[in-house]
């Protein structure tokens, strides 16, 4: 080890220590607990059950079943990844110029991302209120229907997706605005000289140049959507029925409400595995595209 590398390790040691204590150790502990009927109030009362928690998960032994929550999670993830990426990119394209109006627009969109999710979720509950909410008032002023946004199983998930897009799109937009600054202007000009219209320029020049940023945005959106919890907990508590009961919410429900810490840990491990596999697959896909 060289003298320089020793200094390097010393400098990263605090960050590694924090990462180890708050991320790596809890992850290892969670996997260990998933093999137990765990009583965290009194650990001496925990019993080793091996893979039973995982078998219960596969058998769909709980209500709602693992498979039902997985399907609900998949709907949310797909909506957020597709919707969030497209919306973030579209807004970034609109606000790519560095004039005052664009800067104001960027700030306005990004502001939502830095607001606390609990507070804004409660505000959106009011906006979604089917009798007094501003959204239904707007719909009815346009002779639209009155929608029970959070009380109708058909609308509860779309309502949460809309809120989550409002909250998270600012971050995706900033990624793309950063990416757009690195897009070669010369290539765009060359395309226009060759007769490309705006859409063709975007599709054949800008988007391929943005590919690394798109991949990054998709990976981050996937991870965030898989682990989403706050908006589901505050806005619907997984209802009506189990229509918005996601894996993240079930981890909380099983651990803190039903006191099935071992099963919750098994769910958390599976959630971690799904997240890792998806992130890895997206990276592989990205590399293949680059080749």
């Amino acid at each position, binding site marked *: 080890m060289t003298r320089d590398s020793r200094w390097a390790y010393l400098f990263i040691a605090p960050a590694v220590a924090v990462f180890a*204590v*708050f*991320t790596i*150790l*809890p*992850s290892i*502990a*969670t996997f260990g*607990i998933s093999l137990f009927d765990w*009583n*965290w*109030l*009194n*650990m001496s*009362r925990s019993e080793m059950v091996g893979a039973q928690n995982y078998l219960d998960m596969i058998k769909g032994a709980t*209500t*709602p079943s693992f498979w039902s929550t997985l399907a609900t999670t998949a709907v949310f993830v797909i909506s957020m990844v597709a919707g969030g990426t497209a919306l973030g990119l579209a807004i970034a394209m609109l606000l790519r110029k560095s004039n005052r109006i664009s800067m104001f627009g960027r700030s306005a969109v990004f502001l939502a991302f830095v607001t606390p999710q609990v507070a804004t979720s*409660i505000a959106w*509950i*009011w906006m979604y*209120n*089917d*009798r*007094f909410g501003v959204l239904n008032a707007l719909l009815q002023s346009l002779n639209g229907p009155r929608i*029970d946004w*959070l*009380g*109708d*199983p058909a609308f509860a998930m779309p309502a949460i997706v809309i809120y989550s897009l409002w909250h998270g799109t600012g971050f995706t937009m900033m990624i793309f605005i950063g990416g757009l600054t690195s897009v070669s202007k010369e290539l765009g000009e060359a395309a226009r000289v060759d007769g490309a219209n705006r859409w063709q320029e975007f599709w054949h020049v800008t988007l391929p140049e943005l590919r690394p940023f798109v991949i990054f945005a998709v990976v981050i959106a996937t991870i965030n959507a898989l*682990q989403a*919890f706050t908006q589901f*907990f505050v*806005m*619907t*508590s*997984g*209802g*009506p*029925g*189990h*229509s918005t*009961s996601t894996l*993240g*919410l079930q*981890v*909380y*429900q099983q*651990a*803190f*409400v*039903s*006191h099935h*810490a071992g099963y*919750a*840990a098994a769910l*958390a491990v599976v*959630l*971690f595995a799904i997240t890792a596999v998806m992130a890895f697959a997206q990276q592989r896909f990205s590399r293949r595209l680059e080749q």
Partner: protein
Amino acid sequence: MSAFRLVGLTVVAGLVLTACGSGGEDAASTDGKVEITFMHAMSGGAHKPALEAATERFEAASPDITVNLLEQPDYSTLNTKLQSQVAAGDSPTLSQVNPNWTVALADSEVIVPLDERIATSSTYESFYQGIKDDMKLVDGKNWMWPFNKSMYVQYYNTDMVKDAPATWDDLESTLVDVSKDGVVGLSTDVGGATGIAGGSEMVGIIANSNGGSLFDAEGKPTFDDPKVVEALNSFVELQEKGALAVGKNYPGQQALGAEKGAFDLSTVAALEYNLAAIDGKFEMGVAPLPEGTEGASNLISGTNIAMFADTTEAEQDAAWQYLEFLASPEEMAEWASATGYLPISSEATEQPAYQEFVKENAWATDVVAQLDTATRPTPREWTQDSLNIFATAVSNALSGSANAADALAEAQKNATALVK
């Protein structure tokens, strides 16, 4: 923070802090002073100043004891934080607890039974019977001490409804009559998989007052009881007639305050908040719940206090003095009159402070009288989850996902699978 990380961190904090051996240290100093902690969720409205004032009076009367109030914003956070602290070997001396949480705490031997201390109590004998029953778990031991007790009442807009309905049938017809011109008679939150709420509890109360029940004598779910199905069907029919709306975040209070609802069926703890929502726009009536074919029924709500095992004898002695102080007739009368919660003993109702409250709130006497008959299902290991399953069934029926009988049959099947 994601739920995944929360679980992991709770566990690691538990392992690390337990290894450090922080629990069980004697907080009593050599000069005989003792410091205890009380974790609570009395953070809103008049609750917080009332609890702080009572604690200051206790500390003035017991100068060797200091009570540190550990405030949490709501019951859900309190439950999560409490479990995390216990897992971390850092239990408070006392905490507010919902009886359903107490099953796991007692089973894990992290709280202590209070029977020996209750045998010497100067206040226990005067507690109402419903309060005494609510202190016990199924093993017959007293694991809790009563604190902020409440029961359901009907709040109504006297401009829309002259007299409070006396029976559930009267209430249903009144709700239909008043539901016009943008008014929906009753708005309620039914809860769901993460917790039961007032609307679902009301279905149980209606069933009970008509001779049905959500649980049998052994605590096994009986959600497919015809009286329960009938009660849920009555809610579905009211909704179809536009007389009942389901929402979140205190929908009954919102609608009543906006003069878009005629009734709010909530506990007495909502009195202060309903008055604030109405803000003098009309006179709010308060009355006991309507009766069914078998008479009145009500559910004891609110929380108790549990004492934690991971504390020294000196701390437990000091904590017991604090509990006895809070339950004393004078203090309970102050607490009840300041917050709207119910006094837990007949002696408290005779105190001047509560007599003053009753002068302004004549309905309180009839509600307090129900404390001798009101019940809460004695919690068992499966009760909390079963109630959440029941709330999900109510939610399904009212959202049109299933009819009442099918939703309750499914809930019965799922809840029965939890019974051990």
